[in-house]
């Protein structure tokens, strides 16, 4: 009994802080979503009226679609690149691994706000590096205002997202590869398996749990990222880079509709908790 009481005392500070500033607000947000609000105070019970509004909210569906595209792009690009680079690095000298590992990870240490500002310049139509580089190789005609054009804005932003994320994937994959029994690779080599075959038949299958973990991580980040969009396009041009978080922010701070902002928050929470719950099961059984 006393030992149980001690254990509770040990958990208490963390639990109190966590419940006060994360747990409680989540419950409040869920409650807020059931009311109509005006100017920061409740005006009436709304039932599920806020939720039925979602159906006709085209911005919401557009934003959700963009989050979906972001998930797919993140799984397709930084994750695959991370796997490829990590498997190449695994056969390099420890010094190369340390130096290149640091270089790949470096962008992750840069705040997304600053990353957004830097890349905003790279994409600048007048003096940006992107158009300048295209000019240099004779493809100047392909240049444009990357972040201002509806057809390119979201993808141009995703390149920035990938920039800050692929190094993390390299490090995680590398740690997992180094934990693989080296005799497996030696056996494959003695059988005359090429690098590509070793990659395909040894590395990739053995890293399935790591891929699942990174996939989950990437998907969650893709659902909840905010800084990058807010500091570069604020969801524009039009709604072409709108995501759920920017939609929530605007609904709350610019429109002042607390009830509907809470509803959108509940939807976002429901999505990330469902995705992670399902993936957690998958990870456990993998």
């Amino acid at each position, binding site marked *: 009994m006393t030992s149980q009481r001690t254990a509770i005392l040990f958990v208490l500070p963390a639990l109190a802080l966590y419940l006060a500033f994360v747990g409680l607000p989540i419950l409040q947000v869920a409650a807020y979503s059931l009311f109509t609000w005006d100017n920061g105070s409740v005006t009436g019970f709304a039932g599920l009226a806020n939720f039925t509004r979602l159906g006709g909210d085209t911005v919401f569906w557009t934003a959700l679609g963009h989050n979906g595209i972001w998930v797919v792009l993140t799984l397709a690009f930084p994750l695959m690149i991370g796997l490829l680079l990590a498997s190449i690095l695994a056969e390099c000298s420890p010094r190369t691994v340390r130096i290149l590992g640091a270089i790949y990870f470096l962008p992750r240490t840069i705040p997304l706000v600053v990353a957004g500002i830097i890349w905003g*310049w790279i994409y600048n139509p007048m003096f940006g*590096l992107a158009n300048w580089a295209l000019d240099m190789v004779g493809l100047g005609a392909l240049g444009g205002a990357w972040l201002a054009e509806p057809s390119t804005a979201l993808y141009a932003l995703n390149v920035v997202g990938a920039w800050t994320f692929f190094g993390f994937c390299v490090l995680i994959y590398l740690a997992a590869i180094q934990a693989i029994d080296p005799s497996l690779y030696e056996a494959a080599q003695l059988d005359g398996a090429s*690098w590509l075959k070793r990659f395909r038949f040894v590395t990739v299958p053995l890293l399935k749990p790591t891929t699942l973990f990174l996939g989950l991580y990437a998907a969650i980040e893709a659902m909840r990222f905010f800084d990058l969009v807010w500091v570069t396009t604020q969801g524009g041009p039009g709604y072409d880079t709108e995501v759920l978080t920017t939609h929530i922010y605007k609904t709350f701070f610019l429109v002042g509709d607390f009830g509907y902002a809470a509803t959108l928050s509940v939807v976002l929470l429901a999505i990330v908790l469902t995705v992670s719950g399902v993936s957690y099961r998958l990870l456990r059984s993998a």
Partner: protein
Amino acid sequence: MTAATALTATRHTRQSARRLTLGAFPAGRLLRHVILLLFALYALAPVYLVLLASVRSEAELFSGPLSLPWPIDFSNFSRTWTESGFAHYFVNSLIISTGSTVLVLITAPLAGYAFAKLDLPRKELLFGLFLAGLVVPAPSVIVALYGNLQKLGLLDTRLGVILPQAALLLPFSVFMMRTVMQDVPKELIEAAAVDGASPFTTYVRVVLPVVRPGLMSLALIAFLFSWQEYLLPLVVLQADDLKPLTVGAATLQGRYGVDYGGIAAAGTIAFGPLVVLFLVMQRSFVRGLTAGAVK
């Protein structure tokens, strides 16, 4: 497997690889090295670009993004630091990040220890509660958090950023600390108990010294994430002299859309400390980041 055996293992595979490709034209290897270098360029080019721009004088602005600035001009830094208020922003980032990190360092190891080693009732449920928090997006709690902070009188105070920031970092931190604490030998804790030490004394005198590398990793990651946070301070802080670097840099971009040298210097001030910290403490960082992922 320990890091040392992993390294000798990679070295070993590398040597046998060299033996096997001997004589054949190593086109595959060349291609693989080109890939490594291309992505190093992708990672470094934007950083290089902003560093160049930060020491470029205004007169040279349109001489091409990659042209070397000469003479090197530090006036962007002095102007940003003094006139644009970045000395304040820097101190605020330091206070807010240190505050959150200290809070996390006090609370998360205690909880991680209880989850890993103590007889905690409803352990699964409580841990699940923290686990669920791993994915909670900050924007989804802001709607309620904002009003709560207002009622507590914490709106427009640094503490109003520090407390929720630490709370949002806790799920990851508790998870990581549980993993770290699981490796503390049971005998060590039992021996201290036999000597008559109270659980708390055991924790402070015996457990904490053993997990010091883990604490270091936790501190670095908590500091990194707090320093990078944008949404919380953006929402909570209105007074300009309370804002951290991330908010300051974003405001500067909006305010003087043409002062590129100044913005580059501001960006460099905002990420410089993190880059230096990461390069110096790389090993600790990587251990922390991979702690939760690989196990």
